[in-house]
C-alpha cells in the first residue's frame, strides 16, 4: 500500500493542485507528522503509528489562510475533519483527502467503528468488520460497581490534560477543565468525578472514536469506555452519529425539540 500511496501522492503533487501533503514521515526509524512539499521527500513517507492528523491540518490551515493541502486520512481522521468543519474549525474546500483504510489489527486495537474513510484512494478496506463492544462489560455493572470502578480508575489521573490535548475535537481556546469554578486548580488527582465528567460530556456528539485520548493517558484510564457509551447514547436518543456528513448536526447544538 505504501508504494502505491507514494505513487498516488507524487501524481497529486505534480498536478500542482496542493501546496503540500500532510502525512507521516519516517526519520531515524520513527514516524512523525510532516508537510511534504517536494516529491523527492515522499520516499520517507510512512503509515504507522497513527497520529492525530486532523489536528495537524487544523494547525496548518490556521497558519496559512489560503493554501490548499492534501492529507492522508484514515477513517478517524476523516470523521474528525468533518466534525471540525461543522464547528467551522477547518475548511474542507482547502483539503484534498487521500483516504487509506486500516488493517484489521489496527482496527481492532482502536475498536474502531469504521476503520476506513468514505473514499478509499489507495488500499482495500476491510470487507467484514464489526467493532468490539467495549461498553458491554460496563453496561452490565451495578451502579455501585461502576462508581467504584471509576473511582479507582480516575484516582490514577495525573492531570496532564493529555486526553484533551491529544483530542482532535478539543479546539476551545478557553477550556472548562481549567475553570476553577468547576475543578479546583492544582489538586492531584483532580476532583472526582467532575474533571472527567466535564470532558466526557463535552465530547457527547463530538467524539469520533479515534482513541487518541486513551492512548495519550499515562495512567491507562479507559476513557474510550465513557466516550463509546455516550456515542451510543447520542445515537439512541437522537439518531446522531458524530463524524458523519455535514448535513447531520449535533442535536445538542440545535434548537429542535427532542423526539
Amino acid at each position, binding site marked *: 500500500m505504501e508504494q502505491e500511496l507514494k505513487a498516488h501522492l507524487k501524481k497529486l503533487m505534480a498536478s500542482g493542485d496542493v501546496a503540500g501533503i500532510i502525512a507521516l514521515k519516517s526519520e531515524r526509524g520513527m514516524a512523525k507528522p510532516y508537510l511534504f512539499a517536494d516529491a523527492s521527500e515522499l520516499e520517507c513517507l510512512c503509515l504507522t503509528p497513527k497520529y492525530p492528523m486532523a489536528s495537524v491540518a487544523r494547525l496548518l490551515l490556521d497558519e496559512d489562510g489560503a493554501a490548499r493541502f492534501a492529507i492522508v486520512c484514515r477513517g478517524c481522521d476523516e470523521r474528525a475533519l468533518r466534525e471540525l468543519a461543522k464547528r467551522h474549525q477547518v475548511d474542507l474546500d482547502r483539503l484534498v483527502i487521500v483516504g487509506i483504510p486500516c488493517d484489521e489489527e489496527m482496527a481492532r486495537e482502536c475498536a474502531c467503528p469504521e476503520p476506513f474513510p468514505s473514499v478509499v484512494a489507495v488500499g482495500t478496506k476491510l470487507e467484514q468488520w464489526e467493532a468490539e463492544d467495549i461498553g458491554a462489560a*460496563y453496561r452490565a*455493572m451495578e*451502579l*455501585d*460497581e*461502576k*462508581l*467504584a*470502578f*471509576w*473511582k479507582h480508575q480516575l484516582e490514577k489521573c495525573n492531570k496532564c490534560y493529555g486526553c484533551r490535548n491529544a483530542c482532535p475535537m478539543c479546539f476551545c481556546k478557553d477550556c*472548562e477543565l481549567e*475553570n476553577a*469554578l*468547576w475543578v479546583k486548580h492544582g489538586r492531584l488527582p483532580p*476532583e*472526582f*468525578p*467532575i474533571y472527567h*465528567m*466535564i470532558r*466526557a*460530556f*463535552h465530547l*457527547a*456528539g463530538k467524539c469520533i472514536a479515534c482513541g487518541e485520548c486513551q492512548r495519550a493517558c499515562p495512567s491507562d484510564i479507559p476513557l474510550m469506555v*465513557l466516550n463509546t*457509551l*455516550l456515542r451510543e*447514547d*447520542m445515537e439512541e*436518543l*437522537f439518531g446522531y452519529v458524530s463524524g458523519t456528513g455535514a448535513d447531520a448536526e449535533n*442535536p*445538542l447544538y440545535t*434548537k*429542535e*425539540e*427532542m423526539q
Partner: protein
Amino acid sequence: MAETWNPKIVGFLCNWCCYAGADMAGTSRMKYPPNIRIIRVMCSSRINAEMVIKAFQMGADAVFIGGCHPGDCHYVDGNYRTQKRIAVLRRLLEHLGIDPRRLRLEWVSAAEGEKFAQTMDEFAKEVAELGPSPLAALQREVL
C-alpha cells in the same frame, strides 16, 4: 448521622415559569418538603452540565431543573436545549455509577403552583428512598 440525614436537593428554576410556579405554591401556602434549595436562573438552558455536576460534587443528593412547557419558552427554544442536554447528562451520571433518578427535569408553568408542590413532594420522597448521594460521602473523605 444516618438518622439525621435529610435529602439535599438543589433546584435550578427558570425565572419565567417554574420559579413563578414555586412562588405561587408559596403564596398559596401549599405544603411541600423543605429539602430543595432554589436557585433562580433566567432560563433552564442556562444550566450547563458543569453546574449540575458541581452541585453533586458539593454534596447535593439530587438536582431538580424546572423549565417552561414545550412551546412556552421565553427564549423560544431554550427548554428544548435543556431537555436534550439533561437527557444526555442523565446517561452520563448512570455510566459513572450515579443513579440518574437523582437528576430530574420537569416543566412547570407559572400557574402550576400545585404541580410544583406535588413534584417536590414526590421527588423528596424518591430521593429519600435512594438515600444519600454516594458522591457526597466521597467528598467528605477527601481533604
